[in-house]
């Protein structure tokens, strides 16, 4: 593969039209498309297969024995990373809401300054001390507003949970296309060069 790239670079520097066209079709076009897909540069929606490290999904109802009623709230799933965030409630609360968390008491006590909630919202400084796995936080009562991270506001509608099937199909298609780019870069130039050297065709 490296030989092919060096050979191509030599040809390109020598202004070989075939090398340039090969570079355009085998490297630039697929590279630009893959880059576009994983960059999240589009204004409409981030065409990214890589999930954000936070998911927020609303709670809409509560079922108790004999009672089914509408209920506000939301679930936050945080992957451990170094991005601090603030999740304001969509309306100011009279009292801080009840929170359910998937961390134990000693870990919570060790993170008192990192993880706080009040009438305005939920604030988290990451990474949480002593916590490696994702954390789930369930807030009963308020509705969530857009998530604030340093220098950016993440719209809530882009942070919903997506099915594993959806991620899996997108990921495997991307892996296959990356494999395909590597494979064709290897054989594409070599197969044409072979004919050229043999003087056939």
């Amino acid at each position, binding site marked *: 593969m490296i030989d092919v790239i060096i050979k191509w670079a030599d040809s390109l520097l020598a202004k070989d*039209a*075939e090398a*340039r*066209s*090969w570079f*355009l*079709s*085998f490297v*630039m*076009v*697929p590279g*630009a*498309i*893959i880059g576009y*897909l994983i960059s999240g540069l*589009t204004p*409409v*929606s*981030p*065409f*990214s*297969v890589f999930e954000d490290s936070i998911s927020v999904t609303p709670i809409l109802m509560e079922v108790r024995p004999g009672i089914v009623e509408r209920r506000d709230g939301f679930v936050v799933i945080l992957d451990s990373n170094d991005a601090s965030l603030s999740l304001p409630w969509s309306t100011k609360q009279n009292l801080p809401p009840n929170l359910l968390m998937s961390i134990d008491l000693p870990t919570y006590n060790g993170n008192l300054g990192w993880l706080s909630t009040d009438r305005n919202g939920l604030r988290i400084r990451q990474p949480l001390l002593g916590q490696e796995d994702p954390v789930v936080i369930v807030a009963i009562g308020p509705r969530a507003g857009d998530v604030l991270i340093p220098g950016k506001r993440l719209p809530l509608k882009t942070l919903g949970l*997506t*099915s594993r*099937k*959806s*991620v*899996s*199909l*997108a*990921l*495997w*298609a*991307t*892996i*296959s*296309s990356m*494999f*395909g*780019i590597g*494979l*064709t870069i290897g*054989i*594409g130039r070599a*197969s*044409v060069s*072979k*004919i*050229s050297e043999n003087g056939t*065709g």
Partner: protein
Amino acid sequence: MLGLAVGLLLIVSLLIVNVWIRTAPLNPNAPLNVDQSLPLPWAGQASSVCSLTALFGAYFGILVILGIPALLGLAAGGAAGLVYLRSVVINSKASTFDQFLSTRRFALSPQHNDVYILLMVATQLGFAASELSILHDLAVHAFSMAPKHATVFAVATALISYLYCLVGGYGALFRTDIIQFCFLLIMCVTIFVAGSTAANSSHLLHPLAVAYWTFGDGATNAPRTHVVNCLFGFLIGACYMVTNPDTWKRVFVSSLFKGSGSRSFRLLLFAGAVPFILLIPSALLLPKSTLSTIGPFDVFLFASRSRFLLMAVTLGMVSTFLSSTSGSLISAVHLLVIRSRSHRVAGQREIANYHYIFGMCFIVIVAGALVDIAGLGNSYFIAAYLLGPYAILGGTIIGSQGMSVPVRTKHFPWLILATLVAWFVYLVQLKDVLEQATPELLKAFPPGMMIFALFFLYSRISGWGHDD
């Protein structure tokens, strides 16, 4: 598991091309001039006809809304189109497909001829973009994918078809078509089995609006209405076949190179009918709906009943997409490569033009599809618009006797331009057509057939007295 299966299908397609290309690399002086080593041309015909745009879009809508006579008309028209193309191929006396393509003339004036070639190229690229856009919507609505994942899935899958066609040309297209045909058959059998147990024949026995094309006369089940539907279906089926350069290639190879006598061509005819047979059990799986509630992806909702069904349908749909997209892409590239010969630098081999054109065509397809995905709610709009160019091309191809008696008038490009603009204006005024895939689009077929008739007569009259 589903993602892995799709990934394996894509990777196996690439590996097959990889193994084959080592023994038969592209000829740098004529990379697309390959006819003799192409296996089973009929296998690809089935998967090419089985496109998301035509078969699972327009044709399926025609079956459910207008009934079986219209579908029979489509199938018969498709077969008639193949027979017509065979006669054109044999009469051309071309020894290679490349020669056949380069000797076709739409118009006597070279500039006018270029307009036609560009229209044909744009139609093929538009068709591929439409496939990509519909695959995105199919993934969202039928396979419950998040829109951003569906975009990645569709574009990455299209990239695979680009890569194997780029590196292997027609050889790669025909070889991967065989695998895709197998997955299509598996999907066929699965749908047939699932359809036969579903026992919901209401859409087959009672189409939603039989008089949709005749604009209703009260007697919707009158034999006359069915005859008109069948006739329109025949013209649409024939027009689609005749205007598809990918089909020309398969007819050429099966008529002149493959098999003895007409056996290979008969197989091609049979394979072309397989997709239509597939549609009937598909209609059995459609949930009960009305003209106002029916959606283009409703038939795929059944796939979520079991993992096996979902896998068979997903792999079948991906195969369908790969086959039709790669066929359109390579056809467009071939037409442009032939056109680029007159501008070739002395001493430069054709492979450079081939690579440039391939890359540019794919960028156009992806850009067109992304604009459609981001900007329009109706992924079938491109397909509906393409009906106009298809009608223009179909009328001219048949009117010019397979592009052997070229059109001689000066005003042809202006007539094409005026028709394309008028067609756009007509389409956008249909109700909700930009926002969602609606049965309203089927109303565009009769005016489309009028365009076909106009260009057929125009080119026929223009060629009078100059027939071979």
